[in-house]
């Protein structure tokens, strides 16, 4: 998928969790991503963050840092 589309989707998720109470937003975004995104998509996110994460919401970058702890590359 195009990087713009991936960034758009990830940021949409962040936008929702940002509005939620608590201060575990990054963890909740990470959980949402691992629950619903197929490993290929997580890899793409990972690569994009590795390449500077252009356009990604800070919370998505924080969430990605959580995901790499458990996600094994496809």
């Amino acid at each position, binding site marked *: 998928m195009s990087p713009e589309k991936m960034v758009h989707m990830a940021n949409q998720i962040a936008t929702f969790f940002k509005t939620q109470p608590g201060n575990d937003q990054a963890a909740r975004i990470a959980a949402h991503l691992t*629950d619903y995104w*197929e490993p290929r998509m997580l890899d793409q996110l990972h690569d994009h963050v590795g390449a500077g994460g252009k356009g990604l919401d800070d919370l998505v970058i924080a969430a990605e840092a959580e995901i790499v702890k458990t996600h094994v590359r496809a």
Partner: protein
Amino acid sequence: MKDFIIPNDRDMGTPAKSGAPVTLEIDGLPVTVPEGTSVLRAAAEAGIQIPKLCASDNLEAFGSCRLCVVEIEGRRGTPASCTTPVTPGMVVHTGSSKVRKIRKGVMELYISDHPLDCLTCSANGDCELQDMAGAVGLRNVRYEAPENGGLANHFEARNTSGEANPEWLPKDDSNPYFSYDPSKCIVCNRCVRACEEVQGTFALTIEGRGFDSRVAAGGPADDFLASDCVSCGACVQACPTATLQEKSIIELGTPDRSVITTCAYCGVGCSFKAEMNGDTLVRMTPYKHGKANRGHSCVKGRFAYGYAHHKDRILKPMIRDQISDPWREVEWDEAMTFAATRMLGLQEKYGKKSIGVITSSRCTNEETYLVQKLARAVFGNNNTDTCARVCHSPTGYGLGQTFGTSAGTQDFDSVEQTDVVVVIGANPTDGHPVFASRLKKRLREGAKLIIVDPRRIDLVKSAHVAASHHLPLRPGTNVAVVSALAHVIVTEGLMDQDFIRERCDWDEFQHYAEFISNPRHSPETTAMLTGVDPAELRAAARLFATGGNGSIYYGLGVTEHSQGSTTVMGIANLAMLTGNMGRPGVGVNPLRGQNNVQGACDMGSFPHELPGYRHVKGPEVRKVFEEAWGVQIDAEPGLRIPNMLDAAVDGTFKGLYCQGEDILQSDPDTKHVAAGLAAMECVIVHDLFLNETANYAHVFLPGSTFLEKDGTFTNAERRINRVRKVIPPLNGYADWEITQMLANAMGAGWHYTHPARIMDEIAATTPSFAGVDYALLEEKGSVQWPCNEAHPEGTPLMHVDGFMRGKGRFIVTEYVATDEKTGPRFPLLLTTGRILSQYNVGAQTRRTDNVVWHEEDLLEIHPHDAEVRGLKDGDWVRLASRAGETTLRAKLTDRVSPGVVYTTFHHPDTQANVITTDYSDWATNCPEYKVTAVQVSLSNGPTDWQEEYAAQAAQARRILPAAE
């Protein structure tokens, strides 16, 4: 397995009542019935059939024919038993010589004005007038036309000297499915009452008085087709004579047996009697014991089944090496070997996860279960998704988060007890017609209606029904409107504190209440954005919170948005705030689009969930299936439909088995879908027709219709209904058998012998289905899941004593504007919907006479927007978005507000989805069909894309003549 049930649907004469028991005596027999019951019905309960003509148990008694007269001790005269309620101790005689004489006289009068062509009449053997003539013992008719006095009848076109009879009217054959022959009418008024009471359309009237009385559809110049009639068939069903008669019966004869089955169109899931004459289906009639429809139907289920025998139907498997080749017909085993070799080859070359499946919401539960099992157990991945992705996936997420289950909370009967109904983003009279009729009945009894929809749908104002409030919001602002409703309820203190304290998480509620009370959610502040009059919105909120039982029904106008899941949560919040949960008449009711959307979701079609909505990451859940199937199950979620297409374009997804879905026509951003399909090396389409997706397919497996197989559908109220085989599969195999053949060709070793065995496996692995089996369905007719040890007879109402997840959870719903924005290039907002006579992509309904009501998709545009663009009604216009452009004809109407345009997506030539974009719901990727920024201008013919598309389609549909 007993496949054929003989339904007991004797007409009891007048509707059932529910008062206190009353005992009376009829012909010496003691009878106890509820207060309010008619004498006619009480007699029927005791097994005594009093002759009747104008009464029917789905209509209020009318008392016009006087055939049902009886004698009651202590009362003068001979009252009509249909209009006489029982009283305690009443003594009734139904067969005295006095009443017999009256009945004979009545029949004599009827018959004197009736053509006695019984032997060749289409209703011969199925005519109540005939039956009653027999029942009263009519042997001769003494009335004769006066000599030289002209004809005093309605049935002879000319008298013997060739003069025209002014009383005679020709047949009205304008409706494609039934005819109206006025010469046979006995003016019993049943049709008029059926149209009013059952359907709620009020299309029929009795014109004239006395001998001149006539049934008329619409105004004097109208025929049935031109009138308001929506062809639901209720009047035809009600007519005791051949006056209103199905054309199929006229052509094929009356039925000799019937099979109970379930409509394969919309999520209402109406039960039908498939009426057979030998091995020919002659008619479908709504089954009165069907719990979803209670004896009613719409034009689709009742009449639009002719596609099963349409000439376009493909009955032989076909294969081709490349999509540029013509199709080649082959035998089943060759097709299976070809498909299996390709799919296995792709996995070898590109990896296990390079192939997947799409299940169908039109197929049965058993079929869907097998298709997702094919992905998980045979392909060894979780690449399974369903078209429910593109309609109700946000319901799954939103209700799952708030209540703990995605299930709709009520049964359809619940609407009979509701006081205030909110309809959001749904158009029931077109999308869910039988539910709409039931809703309208309740509205006529006084329930109030609030409509939240950008378009003035029919329910806003129609015969004898008007919405108290219509909030015509700008497309894409659902969350703002739903939050504003909640804001009013909370800030004006209208919430149900006790319910919230007892049933919901109090901390989360506190937080939510603080959030929603912020003035930025007030109707006044959000009006700028939503375009909704704040006073109207406040009034609507007050009505919903204080008007008694409040229920919310919603559809795809809620889910198909960037914030679809958030709106669903907002709706759940509204229901919890007002305590409208856990009893009849209330609740949150997602109106599912296709017949088995609910079932497709239940059966584990989603890539992250095993059957019964259990995430694949759970080791205990995987273990259940690993043991049942003897395979390892992948713990990572698979690709969703849009992700599959993206991965295909990226070159990592290569093979697809697509059952009963036409993703090329129904999914958004057609060009992207086409590019994804074109990039795949093996596309297997399993369908009735060469659909649009099949233009990109390498293997075509012909499917069977719902008439040709056994199985179950689960409707919008979680009701599991049986589908029964009526005729053998024309293509040779039921769809579950075809999936099994494909699985076995890939080495699976399945050996299901009947869908009942598949259901047994579902019950054994899925707790909410634990109690379901075909024997139970045979006994009960249908059950609503959860059906298990705790609920052996199923569950009509959810969350009665507590929410599924324990405490109901209020979730903060911040409005976020969609990124799909209007601007100078695309200044209008396009929203999409559907109409009554067509279904989804129209593959079935376009192949029936339903096209008389909808030949093409039209673009609805406000006269003001049309004027500034120089457009007139009926002009060809170009509709363009950032994704693509198409052409269609314009229809000027103020149903849409200025700035909004609307169309349907039933015809492939229109290609409304060339326009829709790839934006989607944040949580589920459900596409944002309902908001696209567009421009509209005059056009001079089809776009290049439409022409190229048509050429490609024609090329791709070529079939080589079979080799001898």
